[in-house]
């Protein structure tokens, strides 16, 4: 975890600058988001180029089985990466998602430039050298690093620094995926965990800017060439449901493998950790050498081939199984690189396998192997990374085809539910726990019991109002009589007054006593005939409704003794009245 450098502000001048900061930062926020998006986009484009170049350079332009370099290169690269990680870039281990979250929640969004450079270099070396990892998660961290660097250099406040990490993360991921909506949703679902208008605008702007840059270079085609697809026979949904089931189980196996191996390797002596990436490289290279070079690297070409029906059923299954093995080895060894691409790879292979099976045994169904591979990608994404919303939009974005929505929703939901039921702790959270950190779990936050609302405090007899209710047009004399009569019947601390403008005024007993104290004995004197609302303050109690959160009432009790809860359908009609004591009682229940 990175430590944020200390900021020292002492002078009067700096105090003046700090006073101007909120308005200034508000103005800078959106403009900086565009710069973050553009620069992240450029870096991610370079990152992908670096991976592709290194791959050709290290593994050759046509890596195939029985080529000795397939074993040698990943091992040597693993050793180099381990040395550089140990002595030069100690913060670059892992995928980048958790590191970005840690930066956000622990060090106010601080990601050092050294980490950013290290992530770029080592992840591209590892992936280009054949380790079974992906470039998306590192891209996310590179984007967050860019945002952190820029916001620090501009001299933004600590609060803003925290906001910018997810902004950059969205930009990095959007450029890597060429899919802005998925990137935005992922950052909201997994990194910041909430929709906030202030952050959302910046996240959207940076993601869009990054994608514009990425498309300027790579073209506007989606990340994968998607074959034409349509769902003509509803019975085919059964096959997609089976895919959801298979994906759920596969994600469980994948998560359990990582959850088992990673801590064991991390607990081994320090010297052995220097050798772990090399050993992982040797084993992954061995898989490639003995027949499955497709599992090496990110594996986009193999995903494309699976999507276009170029593998037979048993090869698809072998690729899925060995990709799980290879990624578990590469990732657990601490080699920097992401898990998005391997997840998509495994999903695509399983999807294509289910599609091939269906085509062989149920040829009357119309779904192409490609459509199953595509849905499979979404399924693993939903189940393994536990981002159901992102997974649906990712499939829609990379396919550009809305007709696939039903299979995607069905399969993703089944896989997600299986994964949740059998692996309660999401994979990113598991890693943070293994690393000794306790970052907020976005999934848990989504699943937490909802907040209490006014209606929960009002109870079943919400229509019974236990305080006197007066008309604002009543004279002060009449009001005093009403209050006196009511006081004789029951205890109350305040009175509700309905004003002519439709608003309510909750007047406390002392406030009324002051007004009534000025009255004499003659009901015809001017003060006695004055309307009561003319003697009250000009402000009105806030309009609250039963579905609003109970916590939102607390600040108002400083000013108002009671809060009338209005009906949303009938202006002026009351659902009930709440005092501070009522609210606290409900919380204590």
């Amino acid at each position, binding site marked *: 975890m990175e430590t944020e450098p200390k900021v020292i502000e002492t002078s009067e001048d700096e105090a003046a600058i700090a*006073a101007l900061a909120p308005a200034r930062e508000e103005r800078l926020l959106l403009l900086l988001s565009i710069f973050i998006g553009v620069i992240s986009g450029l870096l991610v484009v370079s990152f992908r180029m670096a991976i592709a170049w290194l791959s050709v350079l290290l593994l050759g332009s046509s890596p195939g089985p029985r080529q000795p370099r397939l074993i040698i290169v990943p091992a040597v690269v693993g050793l180099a990466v381990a040395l550089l990680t140990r002595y030069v870039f100690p913060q670059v281990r892992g995928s980048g998602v958790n590191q970005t979250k840690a930066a956000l929640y622990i060090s106010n969004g601080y990601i050092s430039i050294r980490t950013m450079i290290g992530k770029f270099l080592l992840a591209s070396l590892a992936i280009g050298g054949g380790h079974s990892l992906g470039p998306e998660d590192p891209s996310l961290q590179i984007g967050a690093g860019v945002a952190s660097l820029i916001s620090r250099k*501009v001299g933004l406040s600590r609060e803003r620094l925290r906001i910018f990490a997810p902004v950059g993360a969205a930009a990095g991921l959007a450029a890597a995926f060429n899919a802005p909506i998925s990137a935005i949703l992922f950052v909201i679902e997994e990194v910041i965990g909430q929709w906030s208008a202030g952050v959302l605008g910046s996240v959207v702007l940076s993601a869009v800017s990054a994608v514009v840059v990425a498309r300027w270079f790579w073209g506007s085609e989606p990340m994968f060439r998607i074959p034409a697809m349509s769902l003509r026979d509803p019975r085919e949904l059964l096959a997609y449901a089976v895919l959801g089931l298979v994906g759920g189980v596969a994600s469980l196996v994948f998560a359990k493998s990582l959850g088992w191996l990673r801590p064991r390797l991390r607990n081994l002596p320090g010297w052995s950790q220097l050798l772990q990436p090399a050993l992982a490289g040797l084993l992954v290279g061995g898989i490639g050498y003995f027949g499955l070079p497709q599992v090496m690297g990110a594996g986009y070409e193999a995903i494309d*081939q699976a999507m276009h*029906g*170029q593998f037979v059923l048993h090869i698809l299954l072998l690729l899925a199984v060995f990709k799980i093995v290879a990624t578990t080895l590469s990732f657990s060894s601490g080699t920097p690189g992401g898990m998005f691409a391997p997840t998509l790879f495994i999903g695509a292979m399983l999807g294509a396998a289910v599609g091939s099976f269906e085509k062989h045994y149920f040829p009357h169904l119309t779904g*192409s*192997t490609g459509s199953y591979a595509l849905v499979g990608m979404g399924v693993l994404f939903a189940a393994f990374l536990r981002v159901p919303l992102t997974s649906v939009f990712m499939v829609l974005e990379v396919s550009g085809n809305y007709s696939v929505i039903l299979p995607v929703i069905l399969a993703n939901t089944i896989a997600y539910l299986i994964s949740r039921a059998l692996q309660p702790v999401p994979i990113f959270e598991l890693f943070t726990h293994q690393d000794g950190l306790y970052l907020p779990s976005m999934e848990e936050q989504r699943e937490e019991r909802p907040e209490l609302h006014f209606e929960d405090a009002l109870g079943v007899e919400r229509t019974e109002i236990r305080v006197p209710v007066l008309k604002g047009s009543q004279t002060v004399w009449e009001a005093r009589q009403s209050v006196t009569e009511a006081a004789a019947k029951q205890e109350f601390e305040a009175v509700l007054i309905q004003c002519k403008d439709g608003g309510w005024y909750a007047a406390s007993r002392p406030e009324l006593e002051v007004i009534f104290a000025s009255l004499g004995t003659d009901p015809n004197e001017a003060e006695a005939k004055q309307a009561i609302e003319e003697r009250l303050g000009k402000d009105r109690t806030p309009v609250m409704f039963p579905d609003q959160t109970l916590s939102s009432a607390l600040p108002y009790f400083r000013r108002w003794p009671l809060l009338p809860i209005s009906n949303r359908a009938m202006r002026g009609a009351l659902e009930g009245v709440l005092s501070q004591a009522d609210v606290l009682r409900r919380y204590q229940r």
Partner: protein
Amino acid sequence: MTDGIAISSKRRLMLHDGVTFLILTLATVVLFVLTLLLFRSFTEHRAELATRWAGRGRVALTHGRPQDAVEALRTALTYSPGERSYELMLAEALEGSGHTEEATSYFLNLWEAQPGDGVINLELARLAKKKRDRNEAVRYFQAAVDGSWEGDGVEHRRDARLELANYLIEQKDFATAQTELLIAGSNAPPDAALEVMFGDALARAEDNANALIYYQKAIKLAPRNALAYEKAGRLAYRMGDYARARGWLERAVRESAGGLASGGGTAGEDDLTLLRNSERLLVLSPSVARTEQDRITRELDDRSIAQRRFAGCMAQVSKAAADLTAGAQGAPSGAAAGLLAMQGLNARWAAAKGLSTRQTLSADDANEDTLVALIDDTEKTTAAVCGAPSGDDALLLLLAENRQ
């Protein structure tokens, strides 16, 4: 904090922000230019790799090493994904290397992206043909005919239709094949070689009449085309139109100037034999006689030939039967049937003794018919019992079969 400090702080901030954005803009521009230069080099390198591997694939495909071509083209496609020419070559290589299912799957995926593409549909049709899936093959052939083609679409469509027609002929669906050929032929430009080709195809589709029309068209377009004359002559001969066969075959021999255009000495000799046969058939055939007298003369000549053939065969059959009886074995059923058939013919020849004069034949048309039927049956029966005839008997047998 005084107003003065606030204003100066504000100014300082504005200056700071201005400089910051200037630096950010410059940094972005520099980074952009760098990335652009790297990207250009990167794409050029990948394009070069794609071309290199595609070239290797092409060479491997040409030299009959489809498995090597598959590997090379797959690599080429990783550097240039979606390049149609590579994809088509890869699919062909897959097909060539015996991966019929994989090739079909590959072409189907290409087809899903471009269902109206002529090349893809044609390849799928060929694969379906290989897999003996007639319905699929015809469907894809039709789609290829109606599909879009790069370059000369008319020619590609015609070739696809011809391939479909040939497939239908193989499947013995002659009626549909004839329709396809006639459509293709009617859309073809006037070209003697093409007309000959359509003639051949129609002849194979058992539409001899139309085939002859196409050969004639070829002759009209190229009056010195020996091949067209030869084909027309042979077909006319097969159809029993010996007069035209003789004419075209004569012309074929003449135009080929010392050898028949069909190439090869054997074929030339065949044509000369056909020519001679045609000439002799024109002498023997009663149907081409110009007058009644001429016809009766021919019938009487044919009678003599057939009678000699009958006598020879009868003697052969009788001797064989006698040999079998002498060997104290029962005559085999085939020999017995032959003997029986010959005895039947013998009885008919005995009854037809009166039909040997010009007067008898000219007295009643029925007598002519009886004689011709006897000649035909004699040639057919003796061919069945004593083996294939030669010389004039062979020609009389041909006439008998044509009449049948």
